């Protein structure tokens, strides 16, 4: 089966059309029953996108945890101040020997960290963008607090996650199973809505019951207890019935995700944790999962000391991972319906510290990848002379990037998710 006729949209249709047959059976997973309720609604009530925006678009969020040093990622080599602030750890201008930046925008004097050649190729192909100087007012330098701000898209960092709210706003009171999937131990706040809850797993192999490993013969009693759906004589409104429905959902998700991930990818992915996660996401997209938002993360960016080697290694993982992921999607024929967005909770201070590292700072670049991305270097680099207590002043509010993604990519009403008054940044090709 080709990927085109296995798209989530057709699965949705299948679920709708198959309802009358399926909805009364005790073994119907909850999401099919929920869709059965959806049948009573006007046909477009379940769709989450504005008319004209395809229903099968996917957003992949990559979190760089710890605070990525933006100035050594997107390097303002054209500004001498950069080298004054960073005599020991600064990245040299393009063409120099040793650690030399990769030319990104000669006019602006902007380059990329030398480890990011794979990402540079994506920019050259016209499928990737750098958004410069992204931050928010009154920056918070606590990892916890700033991550919460980015994930809730609220300056007080309180409440539900912005992606969770996106689903809450569009799903008519019923969570979308597998709507949002996080690869990782903990589901991030970004994906938590009032109603919408993410699926999360560290690796697909762990998204299952491990008791079977104790004794293979347990498979049968386990399956009969968890795959039966709501048993007869159980009050369908009871907690027991709710648990039985969810247990069946979990089994169906588990089967499906593990089957998807078991297939070898179409391209080779590099080693490393981020690549492993992106490979899993690629497999799920290829399999036509109905998931609209995926979340992966790479940690270790809190480079207070001796950062050069660590940072180079992390950026290589990021760039090579994004490169392989894009090639995979392209080979699948899916690169036009997937947008990948990279963020970190803050950048780092302009001046290097005494330990050849950098301390918590403010604005930093974001990255976007996908056929539909408005490519190139977007926004202006923050000034190195007009600082705020030694920190960069942001030039783009991260919420405006979210607004651009929600509005132009997901076809959602950004104001409903982010509140009114957020100006949209255009990051998607029109």
């Amino acid at each position, binding site marked *: 089966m080709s990927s085109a006729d296995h798209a989530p949209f057709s699965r949705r249709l299948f679920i709708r059309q198959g309802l009358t047959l399926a909805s009364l059976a005790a073994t119907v997973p909850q999401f099919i029953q929920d869709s059965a309720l959806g049948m009573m609604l006007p046909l477009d009530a379940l769709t989450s996108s504005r008319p004209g925006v395809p229903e099968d678009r996917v957003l992949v969020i990559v979190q760089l945890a710890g605070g990525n040093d933006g100035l050594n990622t997107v390097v303002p080599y054209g500004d001498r101040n950069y080298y004054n602030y960073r005599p020991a750890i600064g990245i040299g201008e393009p063409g120099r020997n040793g650690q030399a930046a990769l030319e990104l925008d000669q006019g602006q004097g902007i380059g990329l960290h030398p480890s990011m050649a794979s990402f540079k190729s994506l920019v050259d192909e016209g499928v990737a963008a750098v958004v410069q100087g992204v931050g928010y007012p009154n920056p918070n330098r606590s990892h916890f607090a700033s991550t919460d701000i980015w994930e809730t898209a609220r300056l007080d960092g309180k409440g539900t996650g912005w992606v969770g709210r996106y689903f809450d706003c569009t799903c008519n009171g019923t969570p979308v199973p597998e709507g949002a999937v996080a690869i990782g131990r903990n589901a991030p706040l970004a994906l938590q809505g009032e109603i919408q809850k993410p699926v999360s797993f560290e690796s697909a192999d762990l998204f299952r019951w491990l008791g079977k490993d104790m004794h293979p*013969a347990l498979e049968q*009693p386990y399956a009969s*207890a968890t795959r039966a759906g709501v048993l007869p004589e159980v009050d369908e409104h009871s907690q027991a019935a709710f648990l039985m429905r*969810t247990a069946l959902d979990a089994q169906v998700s588990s089967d499906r995700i593990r089957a998807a991930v078991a297939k070898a990818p179409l391209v080779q992915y590099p080693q490393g944790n981020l690549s492993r996660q992106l490979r899993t996401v690629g497999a799920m997209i290829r399999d036509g999962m109905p998931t609209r938002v995926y979340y992966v993360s790479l940690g270790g960016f809190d480079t207070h000391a001796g950062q050069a080697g660590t940072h180079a290694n992390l950026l290589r993982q990021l760039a090579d991972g994004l490169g392989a992921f894009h090639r995979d999607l392209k080979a699948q024929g899916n690169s036009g319906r997937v947008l990948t967005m990279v963020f970190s909770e803050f950048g780092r201070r302009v001046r290097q510290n005494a330990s050849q590292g950098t301390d918590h700072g403010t604005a930093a670049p974001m990255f976007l990848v996908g056929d539909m991305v408005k490519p190139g270097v977007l926004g202006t680099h923050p000034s190195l002379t007009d600082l705020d207590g030694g920190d960069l002043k942001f030039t783009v509010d991260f919420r405006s990037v979210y607004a651009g993604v929600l509005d132009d990519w997901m076809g959602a009403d950004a104001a409903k998710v982010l509140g009114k008054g957020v100006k949209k940044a255009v990051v998607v090709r029109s």
Partner: protein
Amino acid sequence: MAVNSLRPLKPRDFDYWKAHHLLNRAGFGGTPDQVQALASMGLDDAVDYIVEYESIGDDAMPTDRWSADIMRPPTAEEQETARTARRNSDEATLERLQRERNQRQAADRKQMADIQKWWIRRMIETGRPLEEKMTLFWHGHFATSYRTIEDSWHMVLQNQFLRANATGSFAKLCFGIIRDPAMLEYLDNDQNRRRSPNENLARELMELFILGEGHDYTEQDIKEGARALTGYTFRDDAFVFNRREHDDGQKRILGKTGSFDGEDFVRLVLARPVASEFIAWKLYRFFVNDLPGTPDKDTQGFIVKLAKEMRDRDYQLKPVLRALFRSEHFYDPDNTAALIKSPVQLVVQAIRSMRTPARDLSALAAASDLMGQNLFFPPNVKGWDGGRAWINTSTLFVRQNIIVYLLTGKRPNTYAWQEDDAVYDPTHLLAHLPSLDGGPPPVRDATTYLLRFMLGSDPRPERVDGLVAFVERNGGRIDTNVATALVAVIAAFTEYQLC
């Protein structure tokens, strides 16, 4: 339909399975021996034993081994150093101070993780389960998160305060919480000043702590309540009433006028009849039934009577809990094996009732977090929603797998859980079952008992048949291996999520 009065259960109806229910709900379950001991006390004595726990020695771990000073405020001297460095743009000093701050924060997070483990251990080991259970209830009710306040000692102080008053008086808890440093910081009351009032604490006192959202108060009451609470702040680890920041003007709150302060405000709010109904409803959801939606008529009737009991007793909690645990309503089949276990309940009850090794406490804390309940880090001031919010396709697998870990000590490679080779033998759970000839009890009896013991309800026949068939196919007797496998698979049944 469960009766809608506080009518007690008939004493002769209090049997082994009723005692089992009581111990699960009022505590974290117990072994067959403990259940039997409780059952043989009879209803009244059993409930007293649970509720009047002060007579039971508190031999759990001490609380004084935490450092109070990791996040202490800077001394005058340190402040001066920082000021000077800022004035002179002395980057080297500023950087050193920043680094020291980072180190203190890291040390404090470490201490917070230790405190988390300590509380879980306490729940596992305590002889006063209701004390810990109610402390957990209040932690969810007066929810305060370390994530915001980043001071582990303040979290300890709050935890001790909640424990000391766990079954005392709800009024006393409310008066105490407006003087609790962690809460004052969490809800920004340290920013609540005469000239720039901050409504956060006043709002939550009405909306979440005492009356319930939209119940019997107005936005104006919140504004005036915030004025009453101005100047309620803390310095280092102690409450401070800052007279200069307190607005001592006339306020009009809930129809009364006066120059009210914070205590007056709490008193006025507690005087509303809906206050006792709100807290009775929350206790009901925690101890009796957590079905979503509006309670049915009988349930509502029961809650109203519980609330009246609370008002009649000036918000004393013990008489209310005693009435609850003695009531026929509490033991009704509709309310048995009907409550979705919280993650902490799931883990602690498994360990206490089946006597599994506790394994690695940080693994238990991490798993509890994965299941949605990170102790000392409630998601927001509403606390944990509980009930169905605990359950989704991801948490269900973690719930099943944490029991596998408790039983086997083996963890999947990518979880940072410690491998533990303590061998667990669950056959002791079956030791008291009668046998015909001095040998092991018949397989069907043993399987039926194990199911009922673990699930808290009469097992469905198809469940019994499936497990008996498993035993027959695997040697026909319930030895350690087979028993462990049975326990693992029963714990993965959907009904095991209920208690």
